[in-house]
């Protein structure tokens, strides 16, 4: 009997853990579909009377109620900045990761260490000097300014992951390709790249999420609808006199949904990447 009891305890504990992990997010998502007065109601309304997309319509300025916050602009900025910085970071990271995976060269460990150390600089600590430099060269409050910063932010981890994925591919495959008549360039694109593709895709998703979620730098390097991103925009709500909880929750949903969807896609690769990158060194 104690064995059965053991299993029951395990299940109950696991259920509790999953509730703690899952419930806060679900509550925010649920609230995004509820009207503000229901959220503010005292005593609390536990079972929603009506779920609607009104909050989403409102923050995008589509509904009857107007919200002063230009979420549509923020959304567009977030998308442009995250996608562009991801594409550039992956291109640079692929080239760098390949160099680490396939070549022996002088200062290899030093360069690797330097790149990784650049990632340890706290966002807020980096934001001060970048703010000073960017304001001198006119990159403050521009999409390009933020893209550049996010590329730099994503390069180290992208290189780490992609290095690991290329390392898993035996170098004999590229050599076989070269003996079979490929140039090194052809061998890369026809043999190594297709094999690393899913790994590179997950590195890309990871980079996208880093850019999509970033706050410390964005909040200090952006000012207006020209470049403000969703996480920065979220703070606009709190600055108002009364907090529009429903609007904030709706906006949170917009930030969460891509993160959840993409996480689901990459989870397997990401775990593999983190593990071998760390253990095999």
């Amino acid at each position: 009997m104690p064995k059965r009891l053991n299993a029951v305890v395990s299940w109950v504990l696991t259920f509790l853990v999953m509730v703690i992990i899952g419930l806060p997010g679900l509550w925010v998502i649920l609230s995004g579909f509820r009207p503000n007065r229901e959220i503010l109601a005292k005593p609390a309304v536990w079972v929603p009377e009506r779920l609607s997309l009104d909050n989403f319509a409102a923050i995008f300025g589509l509904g009857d109620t107007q919200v002063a916050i230009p979420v549509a602009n923020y959304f567009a900025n977030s998308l442009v900045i995250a996608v562009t910085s991801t594409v550039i970071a992956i291109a640079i990271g692929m080239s760098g990761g390949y160099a680490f995976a396939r070549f022996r060269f002088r200062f290899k460990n030093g360069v690797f260490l330097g790149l990784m150390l650049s990632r340890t600089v706290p966002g807020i600590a980096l934001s001060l000097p970048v703010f000073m430099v960017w304001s001198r060269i006119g990159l403050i409050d521009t999409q390009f300014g933020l893209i550049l910063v996010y590329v730099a932010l994503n390069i180290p981890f992208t290189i780490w992951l992609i290095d690991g994925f290329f390392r898993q591919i035996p170098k004999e495959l590229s050599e076989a390709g070269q003996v079979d008549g490929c140039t090194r360039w052809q061998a890369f694109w026809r043999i190594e790249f297709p094999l690393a593709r899913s790994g590179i895709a997950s590195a890309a998703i990871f980079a996208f999420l880093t850019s999509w979620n970033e706050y410390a730098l964005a909040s200090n390097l952006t000012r207006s609808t020209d470049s403000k991103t969703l996480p920065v925009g979220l703070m606009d709500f709190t600055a108002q006199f009364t907090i529009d909880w429903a609007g904030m929750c709706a906006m949170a949903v917009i930030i969460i949904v891509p993160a959840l969807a993409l996480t689901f896609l990459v989870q397997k690769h990401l775990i593999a990447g983190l593990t071998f990158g760390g253990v095999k060194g």
Partner: protein
Amino acid sequence: MTEVRLANLTKAYGNMEVVHAIDLDIADNEFLVLVGPSGCGKSTTLRMIAGLEEITGGTIHIGDRVVNDLAPRERNVSMVFQNYALYPHMTVRENLGFGLKIAKVAEQDIGTRVTQAADILGIAELMERMPAELSGGQRQRVAMGRAIVRNPDVFLFDEPLSNLDAKLRVQMRTEIKKLHRRVENTVVYVTHDQVEAMTLADRIVIMRDGYIEQVGTPLEVFNEPANTFVGSFIGSPPMNQLDGIVRLADGDISLADGLSIPIPQRTRARLSEGQKVVVGIRPDDLAPRGHGIHDSEASAELELSVSISEPLGTETLLFTSIGGVEVQGKMLNPRMVAPDERMKFVLAVDRVHIFEAAGGRNVMIDN
């Protein structure tokens, strides 16, 4: 007509030289095997021929071209790798046809040549499978198919059988030999397994520490090893090697434990009084009386005590020792041997090899 010629070929990583100015001529259609312990430079040499390693010094000719600065794809060679290096994202058919596709051969030609190669290797029914779905032996065949389909000037094999289990290895060995008969190309084959080298090669090149120790046909390197290293590396079980001192007056070489053997006739003129030598005795040439291969030849008798015997059926290996050095003998038509039994061994004296103690060179071989 494709000879391969290595002249003064040198490879260094930084200050570490791993292949030291080797010279080697490989004839058209020859099956040449590079053999040696790991780290002897054999794979590096092969990879330099393939163009996968940069050449530090010297030249490589393939046919009448110097290929030093040519990329692998420009050398018209093909290579079978130790781990096969099949492209995991392509079917067997695509793997076989990849080289031709890169070379922009017409679609139908690729089809016929791939089918032909598949027929030769008996993999026709595997064509639509992915490499992950193949057994070790099948992967091996596909790798060879990929090599022959391009009809290259030179085949390069880098330890192609070392990942197979023992039984399959013997089988594939025979197939490689048959394949060579059939396609008649120049082959350079690298292995660390001397049995593989002996069975496959037209000529064997024995390498150690980046130097060539000896080049010759399998029987030459077995019967006339150039030095103690080749002597011990070629042949199984390995050659026994014992220190000895030449005593011309007595006409013998004294070993440890008060034992001695007569000086082999053919070496007499090349030895001097008091010279320190290494006596090389193959287990085949040391057998209890009445149980040997070479009983009838000039012989000497040694009485030794057998510590361990290993019956193998047709023969039994006998372990004994001289001066604390383990010595193996071989007994044909075996009988039971008691532990620590003292037996009279017959030594085929004319088959004994005498090496110089300093440097290990066979005294029969001139510089």
